[in-house]
Each structure stands twice: as structure tokens, then as C-alpha cells.
């Protein structure tokens, strides 16, 4: 097992990883920026080291500073968490070259799955249904026109190296295609220094479903699917498992195909394959080669500590788990609590939490990094904690969430707690009658 793990992250995911380390009796090192000196992850870690200023480029994205911290503390493994450097293959490469274990897949696989065109080709080759569209980089307007009229409008132009909606353009008719293609290429060049773009059929109101996997290159298992269709601007707000809309036959097909694909990839660690689900069919969207925010949903339903498994697989090179070890129980739903004011168009709400009471009780879990007196600074993501509840069925999970949300007290900043109460009591949510654009259409305030 590792002698010491450096957690290259902050916030709730850093706390989550440090907790796993403690239970495995592995000392954990926290890195932090100057403004995070009193943060929860710093307080819980066995050692901490300040690596730069509040700006992410100077601290949590600063590879040189992080490598110095590894050196100074003598850590022999790095856990990247999510966001920041977690999908940066260059970082994984440097860590590995220095004979430190990067907890995650190889840099080579990260690179392969990070390039959207490459990932789509791989998925198709390994038997996953993909969205109709161009085979690779679209070079000319004529080529774009031909492909688009073949698959039918509307179409979506996406950057091969993309993410966060940048370099993404929706085209409703042929007249718009020329301008949109040029714009998409310009944006892709600007943000990712790569102007490769591809074209896909656009789905108006699909659902977002993803599959959690764990793999040690030889054995690949799944921890079921998650339905993350309650979103705002591509940011998930509520995630649940199982998906309330999947038929059992489609679910088995989805899970089998995902496991089959990953087992042929030489993949190591935890990962998520994301899909678009529309009218009874699923299509490969992308793969995330890291732990995800909503991983507790699958942990609770499948009874497996995913972060500990990541560490074990990274250390031993193999997993002791078999698919038959996993039994799914009940229904699990997660609400993301963000420091935002949903009544003011989700305006960020930084500040000091002067009163903090977190809910507890039967089958209620809160993963967070908040405490009374802590400062929520404006420099990082607005996610401050997550509330996850399990029920025998979906109805009980919703009731338990409502009960827990009503116990939650956070004063000093505005959060999405109030919005969650409204969503969970909305007829459309209760009836599972929603898609990824539902939140934008509905007015809750």
C-alpha cells in the first residue's frame, strides 16, 4: 500500500479522498492556495502545504508547485480528484515520470478519451452506439453541408478538444452553417489551440444517463447507471440511480456494452461513460477518466467505496471485486448544494457561513467541506456540499431528501437548498417527466 498520498485538489472532493486515506491508514497531504489556509481539507489532512495564490493557475493548476509539494512531503501517490488537473494527461505523465503513482488511468488513455473525435471512434469500434455525424474533423463548409443535410437539421458543431460548451455551436438551418463553422473553429483554436471540429445530430430534449465503472485492466465491473437529467447550462444539479425511465432490457444492454468497451481499453481505476438517451435509445457522448461529483449515488446503491477502490487498484494493480459482489439496493438521489442564488439567475453567493447545521439520520449522507465560520471565497467552483439520500424506492428517497433539506441550516450565504425543495415537490420531477432542458423552461421563482 502507499506510504503517503498527496491530494491535488480542494473542497468537498479533497475531504472525500482524505477520509478514504484515513480509513486505509495512509497519511494524507493537503495542498492549498493562500486563501484556503483554513479550509476543511487542510484541517483534516495529516500534513498541508501552501502552493500558491488564490488564482487556480498559481496553485491548484500549478504543476511545478504540486510536484515540489510531492517532493517535500515524500508522497508516493497523487490523487487528482475531479476538475483542475484530473484530466490533464500532461500532469499524469509528469507524475508517472517522477516515479510517483498517479491514481487514475494512464496518460495515454486520458489523452485518447480527452480528444472527442478519437473517443467517439474508439467507442464506435468497441460496439457502442454513437450519435450520427461526421467521421472526424470537418475541414470545409461543403463537407459540413453534405454531412448536415444527410443527418438532417438541427446539428451541433463541437470542438474535438472541447469542454464546457466552448467551441460548441447549434445550427438550425443550412444558411447558418457557414458562419457557425467559422466561429466554432475560431473558438476551438483560441481555447484549445486545435481547430478540429466535428458535426453531430442535435437532440432537442434528451436525458443524460451515465454508467459508473471500475476496472483493473483485466476485470471491469459496473456500479449501475445514474440519471443526471436535472441540469442547468450543462451543470448537473440532481443525480439519481437507477434511472426512473430506463426499461430493464435497455438498462442491461447499456451496462453490458459499457463494461465490454472498457474491458478492451486497458483501463485502470474509476471512470464514467456518459450517454444521451432519447426515445428509448442511448448514444455515447463522452468518457470521464476520473472520479465524478455524483459518485456517492453509485457508492450507496452498490455498497462500494469507490475512492478506496481507486486507491486499492492503483496500489495493487488489481481489484478484488467481481460483478457478482455488487448488489443494488433501493433508490438513491443526490442534490448539489451550491453557493448561488437561484432567485437571482444563479448569481454566485460567496461569503462567510455564520450558522451551519447539516442534516443527518437514517440513510442520509452529506459530503461537503463546510463548517460554521468557514469562508466561501469567490475564486473556485460554487459547489459547497452534496446531500445524498437512499430510500427503498424513489418516493421514499424523495421524502427523505425533503426531510433532510428542511433540517439543513446555512446562514450567511444563499444556496440552492430552497430550489431543491421546490424541484423535489414539482409534479414533473415526481413523475420523472423531465429532460436536460427542463430546468431552463420552468420558472421556480
Amino acid at each position, binding site marked *: 500500500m502507499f506510504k503517503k498520498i498527496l491530494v491535488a485538489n480542494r473542497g468537498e472532493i479533497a475531504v472525500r479522498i482524505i477520509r478514504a486515506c484515513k480509513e486505509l491508514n495512509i497519511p494524507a497531504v493537503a495542498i492549498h492556495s493562500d486563501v484556503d489556509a483554513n479550509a476543511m481539507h487542510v484541517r483534516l489532512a495529516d500534513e498541508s502545504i501552501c502552493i500558491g495564490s488564490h488564482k487556480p493557475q498559481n496553485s491548484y493548476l500549478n504543476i511545478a508547485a504540486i510536484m515540489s509539494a510531492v517532493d517535500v512531503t515524500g508522497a508516493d501517490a497523487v490523487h487528482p480528484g475531479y476538475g483542475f488537473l484530473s484530466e490533464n494527461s500532461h500532469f499524469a505523465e509528469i507524475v508517472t515520470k517522477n516515479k510517483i503513482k498517479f491514481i487514475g488511468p494512464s496518460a495515454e488513455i486520458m489523452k485518447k478519451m480527452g480528444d472527442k473525435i478519437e473517443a467517439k471512434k474508439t467507442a464506435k469500434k468497441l460496439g457502442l452506439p454513437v450519435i450520427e455525424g461526421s467521421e472526424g474533423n470537418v475541414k470545409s463548409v461543403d463537407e459540413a453541408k453534405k454531412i448536415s443535410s444527410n443527418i438532417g437539421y438541427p446539428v451541433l458543431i463541437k470542438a474535438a478538444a472541447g469542454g464546457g460548451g466552448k467551441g460548441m455551436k447549434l445550427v438550425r438551418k443550412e444558411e447558418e452553417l457557414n458562419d457557425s463553422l467559422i466561429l466554432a473553429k475560431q473558438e476551438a483554436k483560441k481555447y484549445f489551440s486545435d481547430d478540429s471540429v466535428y458535426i453531430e445530430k442535435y437532440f432537442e430534449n434528451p436525458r443524460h444517463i451515465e454508467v459508473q465503472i471500475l476496472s483493473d485492466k483485466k476485470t471491469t465491473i459496473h456500479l449501475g447507471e445514474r440519471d443526471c437529467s436535472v441540469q442547468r447550462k450543462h451543470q448537473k444539479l440532481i443525480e439519481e440511480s437507477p434511472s426512473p425511465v430506463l426499461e430493464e432490457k435497455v438498462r442491461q444492454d447499456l451496462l453490458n456494452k459499457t463494461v465490454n468497451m472498457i474491458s478492451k481499453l486497458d483501463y485502470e481505476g474509476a471512470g464514467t461513460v456518459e450517454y444521451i438517451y432519447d426515445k428509448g435509445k442511448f448514444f455515447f457522448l463522452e468518457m470521464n477518466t476520473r472520479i465524478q461529483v455524483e459518485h456517492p449515488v453509485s457508492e450507496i446503491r452498490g455498497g462500494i467505496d469507490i475512492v478506496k477502490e481507486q486507491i486499492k487498484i492503483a496500489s495493487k494493480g488489481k481489484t478484488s471485486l467481481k460483478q457478482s459482489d455488487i448488489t443494488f439496493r433501493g433508490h438513491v438521489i443526490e442534490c448539489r448544494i451550491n453557493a448561488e442564488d437561484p432567485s437571482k439567475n444563479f448569481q454566485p453567493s460567496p461569503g462567510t457561513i455564520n450558522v451551519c447545521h447539516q442534516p443527518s439520520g437514517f440513510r442520509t449522507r452529506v459530503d461537503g467541506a463546510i463548517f460554521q465560520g468557514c469562508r466561501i471565497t*469567490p475564486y*473556485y467552483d460554487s459547489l459547497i456540499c452534496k446531500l445524498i439520500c437512499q430510500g427503498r424506492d424513489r418516493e421514499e428517497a424523495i421524502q427523505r431528501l425533503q426531510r433532510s433539506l428542511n433540517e439543513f441550516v446555512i446562514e450567511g450565504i444563499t444556496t440552492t437548498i430552497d430550489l431543491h425543495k421546490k424541484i423535489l415537490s414539482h409534479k414533473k420531477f415526481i413523475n420523472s417527466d423531465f429532460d436536460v432542458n427542463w430546468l431552463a423552461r420552468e420558472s421556480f421563482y
Partner: protein
Amino acid sequence: MKIDKKIIDELTKYLKEFGLTEIEYGDGNTKVKVSRSINVSSVAPSEVKKKQEIIESNGTNITSPIVGTAYLAAEPGGKKFVDVGQKIKKGQTVMIIEAMKTMNHVPSTQDGTVSKILVKDGEPVEFGQPLISIK
């Protein structure tokens, strides 16, 4: 439904008396919540006032609507939104304040000429802090 204005009146008095931002009172099925917003700034209020007075004497300030990081241009090394001496119109973007990974455009509150830019690119700013002054 009839709301007893006396309760609101009484609660408002308590807010001020005890320096609270929020107070909730419940009786049976009725619940009344009264809150007020207080602008919190890490800079001592007297200091901000002094600073503002100096600048305001020769123009108006555009202040930050939010806590965050100020950017003078849309991208590093890019063209600044405004420069000293530049004529600007009401509603024109003068700066971007990044807070929690969202970019918030700060519009000019009036027509005028930029006389001074009061913050540096990438500088952390507080709520209500003067960003630029216009004549």
C-alpha cells in the same frame, strides 16, 4: 389571507435593535420572515468612504456589483474593455468580475470619459469597491 402589518413592523424593529439580517416568527400556520441586506466589505467602512470621497470629487465611480476577481480584458493580453481618456456609453462593458467560475460583465452606469482605472488586472475586488471613475 390577511397579513398583520403590526407583526412585520415589530419584527423590523427587532432587526435593527439586535443588528440582525433576518428574523422569522411563527404562530400556528402563519410564518412571517423579515430580512434586510447588509453590504459586507472587508475594508473598514471609513476607509472606503474616504477613498470614494477623493475620487468622487472629480467624477463618478462605477463600483463592483459582486465579490470576485477583476479582469480589464476578455482574455489575457487581449484588448482592454476601456482605457483612460476613452469616451464610453451607458451600458457598455467596462470590466469583467469573475466569481465562482462565472464571468459577470460590469456595465457603465452613465455616459462619460474614463478618468481613472482603479484596479489592476487580476486583482481581487470586494462588493461596492470602486473600479473606474468617469468624468
